[in-house]
């Protein structure tokens, strides 16, 4: 098992997300993250998913995806890519010492404080998913109120051919 990142370029038609999600369920794929957004091309959206699977099943998934009428292209962004995710974390603050420790960690991880008051802090981190995981691990010593993440997005690095 390995974590794959698959990018699906789709026509911006009603129901297209439903069609893809239906396919994942039917073919037994468990999606870890999903991120949807507009692209450089008008009328096309990009859906980025990550999932744990093996090479043979991923090949099958890609072929199933390309069959969906509204799918324009499918590419595997698992290798040679820039991978980022954005995560917002709300913590409770219990005393000044704790606050200083948290701020220290925010700096260590190059995260950002979005808002803060006496009792709560909201932090934003944009990084590779495993770095975000480490950050959350470190923060788990404190009172985590809420975590929300965008799902992974990726793009081929400059050295590699486009798509």
């Amino acid at each position: 098992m390995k974590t794959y990142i698959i990018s699906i370029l789709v026509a911006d038609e009603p129901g297209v997300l439903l069609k893809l999600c239906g396919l994942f369920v039917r073919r037994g794929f468990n999606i870890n993250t999903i991120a949807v957004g507009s692209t450089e091309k008008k009328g096309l959206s990009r859906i980025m998913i990550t999932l744990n699977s093996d090479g043979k099943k991923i090949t099958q998934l890609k072929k199933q995806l390309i069959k969906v009428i509204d799918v324009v292209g499918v590419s595997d962004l698992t290798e040679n890519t820039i991978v980022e995710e954005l995560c917002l974390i709300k913590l409770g603050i219990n005393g000044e010492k704790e606050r200083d420790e948290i701020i220290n960690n925010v700096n260590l991880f190059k995260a950002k404080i979005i808002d803060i008051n006496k009792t709560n802090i909201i932090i934003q981190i944009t990084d590779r998913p495993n770095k975000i995981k480490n950050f959350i691990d470190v923060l788990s010593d404190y009172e985590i109120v809420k975590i929300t993440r965008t799902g992974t997005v990726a793009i081929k690095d400059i050295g590699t051919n486009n798509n």
Partner: protein
Amino acid sequence: MKGSQMILNTLKDNGVNTTFGYPGGSVIPLFDAVYNDNEFRNILVRHEQAAAHAADGYARASGNVGVAIATSGPGATNLVTGLGTAYYDSSPVLAFGGQVSVNFLGKDAFQESDMMGITLPITKHNFQIRNPDDINATIRKAIKIATSRRPGPVYVELPKECQVGDITKPNPKTAEVLNCGPMPRAKKEDIKKLADGLLNTQAPLILVGGGVLLANASGQINKLIELLNIPVATTLMAKGVIPDNHPLNLGMIGMHGRKSANYAIMNADLIVVLGCRFSDRITGDTDAFARDAKIIQIDIDSSEINKNIDIDMSIIGDVKSILDDLLAVLKMKIKSPKQTDWSKKMKKIKQLCCCDIDIGKTPIDPRKVIKEINAAIKDTDIVTTGVGQHQMYAAHFLERKYPRTFITSGGFGTMGSGFPFAIGAKIAKPDVEVIDIDGDGSFIMNSQELATCKEENIKATPVILNNNYLGMVRQWLEIFYGRRYSQVGLGNTTDFVKMADAYGLEGILVEKPSEIKDALKEAMGNDETTIVNIMIEKESNILPMLPPGGTLKEAFGGCMEQAGYECFEK
């Protein structure tokens, strides 16, 4: 012009002037347009499921799109089984469903159902048309999607506005749609590799699936068989692509396959597979399937490669053009067909595997019925079936010569599809006789269509192999559940002759083998639909069969019952 008229016009422009449909609140405007249109015929079925199956039967008989119409809510959900049936056998069906007005959508209005969600996993694609100006392009796209590449059903939802609203813009010139263009031609080196493979093996076999029928490549495949003198096995869906009586056609493989065909799969060293998706009903245990053979798979759908069976080489593309290319290469290399030991042996095995089906005993042997049907029909006539033992008897013993003359629900195995299939096929091919070989269980699932036949003057002849049982399930209970016949006895309650009479039609009861011939003759000679109800032996079994999860080697019973596969070795 109103949207509803635009729907009809677009269909007519695309060669559709007959639909199978049933009205209701949300399609009243559409049928109102039909009322005025002399060039358009809707066949009023008696159940929307039958509308979908009839459209499917029309599509399978003609190769063109078949169209069904239903109202929203329960009308549309009644289409679902028919859409599933078409989807699993890749049949180009276009189904229209009404829908509540757009401003009621999502508010649980009367007869609203989320058909876009419900049809999603059993259609190739679906559309909802909100604006009348989108009708023309959307229907053109829907037909293109249904019929191109690997065909399949498309569902089009028609909220009321799009039917009653006015068209305000001219129709677009083009209606482009993704993933529907012609397939790229196969690479030359792949064709060469395939040709070399076929020429340089001792025991090559061709396995033909329904995709070859869908690609209209029957002519090509028959030429290939002649040129190479190569034995061929088929799936259920490919029956008719190669004449059943061709000396090299070993018949159907799989769970209820012929021993000759399964033997060939187990003993070939190269299998070239065309348009076949390796369903579990044909492979048996996949780990043991054709373990000794190299497999080359040719398909239009790349997702079928390595899905169920690991293969050695694949070519993606249109089977017809691939075969054309292959034939061109082979013709230069082969002067005259080679008589190999392997092809001689397979011809002999085919003969060995041919049991005497002209059995005169009473109660009637189901094989005898099929034999009499063979004698009664022409090669161009069309036979449909229900699902069960009778379907498998037909698969084994019915003699077909041409593609699209045998229509059956394979992938979905839908009981009740046979009779509406026959109605659709008759509309597509009015000049041939259409016979529905059906079971007493299956036929009842859509027997209300007798009324459609009577009213619309459609002649399709149901020949019921009546064993008073859900025979196929009974067979499983006999063999694997120690004859504990739970919920399979239908009794002799249904009098099919009286049933026909109730619809103003004739029915003929047959109890002796000697009566079959005349009954078929009479029914086929009648102008109206006539039921032939044939009482057959109640507990006959269709053999050979594989135990569930078994390998092709473990098939038991059948014509070489005692002998097993060893007899072929001599």
